[in-house]
Every structure is written in structure tokens, then in C-alpha cells.
């Protein structure tokens, strides 16, 4: 299909754009490694006190940390993806250029973010993970199928993450200054996806709720697939349901935004 080639080209462009900034890449690997180390020692202290917290043994807990560091930038868990750019384009009115093109706004940005995510997975995801695996004993599966199952869960996690961030970005059509929404989305994304602690450790109703929210499909879900703690098919269904619902919400918001909103800047 012709439009498939278009979005492939957009994704390839997204990949190459991020690949041009080598220094940022190295700085990112360093940051993710340091954060990983800090979290590992925190978790070690925690799991010493409370073994099998959240159903993980110590090796699983440490593995969880490095999965989190690998996916943090890749999936834009606390922002840093396409949304900053899209919001800026909405704020300045440059989005008019995106709108008159014979392309779909949501698919366009999804493709661009897909290219970015793929680059970040290799450039900023894999290296800290490898460093973590060299320094600590990790609980990793031995068979290829488990890794493939994990990658599929990561792909779905990216779709959910994209759909969430697309909603955040479109808020710029209504809010002249979207800083508050962005910061809130960073914090919610960081906590509710399980970046601070695995969502499994939260007890009671709070834990039940937080595990039902879309963010849990971004990090907790793929991590549990890799750690063998979740049934992959059930996880996919959960992720796919959120993906469809949020993408549809994004479409709705997009049509509202483009219909009612004056593009800034005359």
C-alpha cells in the first residue's frame, strides 16, 4: 500500500533524526545506567527486609530494574518522545503544515515515534540492560520464545504509551501553556507504569486500581512477561484493549481539535 510506504518513510526519518545526536545518546546511556544502579541498591535493601515482595525474588527484582531502564526512554515513560515536538508545533501554529498534508496526523506521529522508539531501544535501552546483566545476576529466560513474547509485549506497550502521550500532546490545542499537563503526565507515567516500584508490591484496593490503569501495560506488563510472572496472551489482551480505547480517544480528540480550534498565529 502506498500509505504504508509513507509511514515507513516517516518512521525511518524518526529513527535517523535521533541517530544524529550521538552525544545525547551517550549521555542517556550513562544516565540510565546510574539510575539503574541506584534503584538496584534500593531494591536490594528492600528485598533483604521483605523477601518475595510483590511475588518477585531478589534476582527478579533486579531484572525488573534493568527492564525499566531499558524501556524508560524507549517508551517515553516520563515523556521525551514525539509529544514535546507536537506540542510545540501546536503552540506555534506549525501544526497547520502537518494538517494540510495528505496524511493522517495520528498515524504520522505514531510512525515518527515508532522510528524514535526503535532507535532508543537499541541506543539507550540495550546498553544499560547489558551493563546490568554483567554486574548482577539477572533472572532471564533461556528460550527464544519467551524473549519474542516479551518483544511483542514491548511493542504493545509502546502503542499504549504513544496513545497516552498523543492525548497529552493534543491538550496543547486547548491550553496555551501545556507545561502543567506535561509535568503531571510525567509523574503519573513514572509512578503508575511502575518505574518507582513494581506495581505488584502495592497492596489492597490501591494496588488493584493501579494495575488496571493503562500505564501498567507500559512497563509492568512486558516485565511480567519476561519474568514469567504473567500469561502472555492475557497480557496482550489487556494491552490491546487499552491501546484500542486510547487510540480511539485520540482520534476523537483530534477531530475535535482540528474542527474547533484556531490554529495559532493567524
Amino acid at each position, binding site marked *: 500500500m*502506498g500509505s504504508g*510506504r*509513507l509511514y*515507513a*518513510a*516517516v518512521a525511518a*526519518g524518526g529513527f*535517523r*533524526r535521533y541517530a*544524529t545526536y550521538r552525544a545525547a545518546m551517550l549521555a542517556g546511556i550513562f544516565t540510565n545506567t546510574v539510575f539503574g544502579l541506584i534503584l538496584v541498591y534500593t531494591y536490594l535493601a528492600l528485598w533483604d527486609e521483605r523477601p518475595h515482595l510483590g511475588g518477585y525474588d531478589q534476582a527478579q527484582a533486579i531484572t525488573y530494574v534493568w527492564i525499566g531502564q531499558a524501556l524508560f526512554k524507549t517508551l517515553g515513560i516520563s515523556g521525551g518522545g514525539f509529544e514535546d515536538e507536537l506540542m510545540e508545533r501546536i503552540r*506555534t*501554529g*506549525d501544526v*497547520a*503544515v502537518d*494538517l*494540510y*498534508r*495528505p*496524511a493522517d496526523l495520528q498515524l504520522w506521529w505514531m510512525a515518527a515515534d515508532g522510528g524514535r522508539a526503535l532507535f532508543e531501544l537499541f541506543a539507550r535501552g540495550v546498553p544499560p540492560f547489558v551493563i546490568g546483566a554483567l554486574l548482577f545476576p539477572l533472572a532471564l529466560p533461556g528460550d527464544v520464545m519467551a524473549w519474542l513474547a516479551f518483544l511483542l509485549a514491548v511493542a504493545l506497550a509502546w502503542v499504549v504509551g504513544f496513545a497516552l502521550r498523543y492525548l497529552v500532546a493534543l491538550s496543547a490545542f486547548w491550553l496555551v501553556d501545556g507545561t502543567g499537563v506535561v509535568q503531571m503526565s510525567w509523574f503519573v507515567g513514572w509512578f503508575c507504569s511502575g518505574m518507582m516500584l513494581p506495581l505488584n508490591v502495592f497492596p489492597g484496593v490501591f494496588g488493584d486500581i493501579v494495575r488496571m490503569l493503562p500505564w501498567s501495560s507500559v512497563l509492568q506488563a512486558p516485565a511480567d512477561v519476561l519474568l514469567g510472572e504473567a500469561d502472555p496472551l492475557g497480557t496482550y489482551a489487556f494491552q490491546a484493549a487499552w491501546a484500542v480505547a486510547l487510540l480511539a480517544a485520540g482520534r476523537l480528540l483530534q477531530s475535535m481539535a*482540528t*474542527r474547533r480550534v*484556531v*490554529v495559532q*498565529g*493567524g
Partner: protein
Amino acid sequence: MDRVDGVDDAFIELDGVEKVFEVRRKTGFLKRERRQVRAVDSISFRVERGEMVGYIGPNGAGKSTTIKMLTGILTPSAGRLRVAGIDPSRERTRLAHRIGVVFGQRTTLWWDLPLVDSYRLMHRMYRIPDARYRENLDRLVELLDLADLLDVPVRQLSLGQRMRGDIAAALLHDPEVLYLDEPTIGLDVVSKARVREFLRELNAERRTTVLLTTHDLQDIEQLCKRVMVIDHGRLMYDGPLAGLHEAGESERTLVVDLERELPPIEAPAPARVVRVEGPRQWLAFPAAESAAPLVARIAAEYPLVDLSVREPDIEAVIAKMYAEQAGRAVS
């Protein structure tokens, strides 16, 4: 423009097109006041295939709103609008394949990547057949002198280079109409001349219909036979550029150098002295009248050393038009 029962060659048609925005303004902590702003107010015009038309007006006059309606990204509040027989807002994507747009202050190019990457994207986006893409790219690269820039990241291009790059990007898919919104804004004299020269050739050779929005009246003078003036959302003038002088009741200026400093010359009305600076005096008189009787009279009665006649400045003509419109709006 005359029309022959709907079977004319009109390529762009607007009939009573309006665009009303609802603006909410903060009037208190939580209070909002709703106000309607009529950005485009009952505009009608038609542009024929192959025409090159200037569309001018001050900031906020409604130019960009019109262009946005013509691309389909804004829907008119009322009226009928067609481009190439297509209703832009209903079939935005279909129309997009037939139009090219250049916003001078925005770019369609990929900021971080080499120029040629953006062109490859256009190739896919507009589904341009490979052979035609190559052919068009080669031609545009030659005409716009882009050969050395293709591998340069867009962020490293100068404004003039980027503008040429943007114009090429808008033309790769052979659009039948090109909307240019301030294509020469911020460019130096050489770059401006180059862009104008290219547009002139494009229009002459390819018969591409061009609608040009600009603040720079030289763009219009050098490119367009026809000009439309819009202010406060209304079309105030639509006709040949020369006709603007009459419509704007413009005046020519006679500059007179006398032997010595003298009180203002007593000229026969409607001519009058508008400025005195030492021995030099400036007299304004209607552009349509001959300067000869006025010159003869002054030469007879005053110690004349030298004189020159200045043609009306088109900018002044338009500024006067706006001022009159504003005056009418107030009264």
C-alpha cells in the same frame, strides 16, 4: 471578473465565504467572555487557471484564514468554496494532491535531517511515480540552485536557502495551484529576486495558478497583474495593480527646489504643500491630473531652481485605503 454561466475556467471559486471564530477571553478569575470574530466576511472571487494573483492586506486582515480555508484545514462558516471543483474541507486529502503550499514563516522540511530526506518523504506522501519524481527533483534542484544543499541538514540552511528548499518541496508533486504565504519574508535582496524569478518562470512555463500573500508590495508589482486587497475580512479591491491608484485616490508628489527659503507656495487647489524644509517644498496633487499646469504656475511666480515628480507609492495607496476603511468603520 466576468463569468459565463458556470462553465468558465475558474479554478478557485469563493462565493460569500465567511469564517467566524469564537474567541473566549478571560474577564475574571473564572469568568470567560465569548466573542465572535469575523475573520473573513463574505468574500467572493474567482481565479482562473494559470493566473497569478496577489492577495494583500495588513496583519490580521484575514489572508491566512482564507489560505487555510483554501487548503481545507479550516471550514468556512458560510458560503461556497471550490478549488479545482473540490470542496476543500470535505475532501482535504484528495485536494492536497493537487495543491502546493508554502508558508514563509513555517517549514514543511525535516529540521534535523538532510534536505533530500524531506523530498523522499514527499515522494511517498504524494505517491509521485518514480520517474516523475526524479525528473521534477532534477528540474527544481537546477532552477532553485539546490544541488549543494541536498545533503545539508535543514537546520544548517540560511533562511533564503530554506525557503528555496520549501518551494521545491511544495512543487515535487506538480500541483496545479500554489499558495504562497509570505514567500519572501525575511529574505535578502538577492534571495528575493531569485524566488520571484523562479515563480515567474513556473507560472509562464507550467501554467501553475499562483495565489500569493505578501507584505512586500514589490512581490506583487513584479509578479502579479491582478491584485486583491483584503482588510477586516472584506475584499476591498479586486483588479489590475494599476487600478489601485485610482481606487485609492492616490496622489503624486511634486518636489520643488527654490532659490531661498520661502513661505509655503500658494498652489491652486486641490494641489497643496505638504512639507517644507528650507528651500525645498513638497506639493501633493491627484495622480490622475497632469503636472504641467502646476509646474508652469510655480515657475512663473517663484524663483524655481529644480523640480521632480514622484509617482505614488503603492504602499501609501494601500495604507490610505486601510485608513479610509477604518474611518468608515468607526463612524
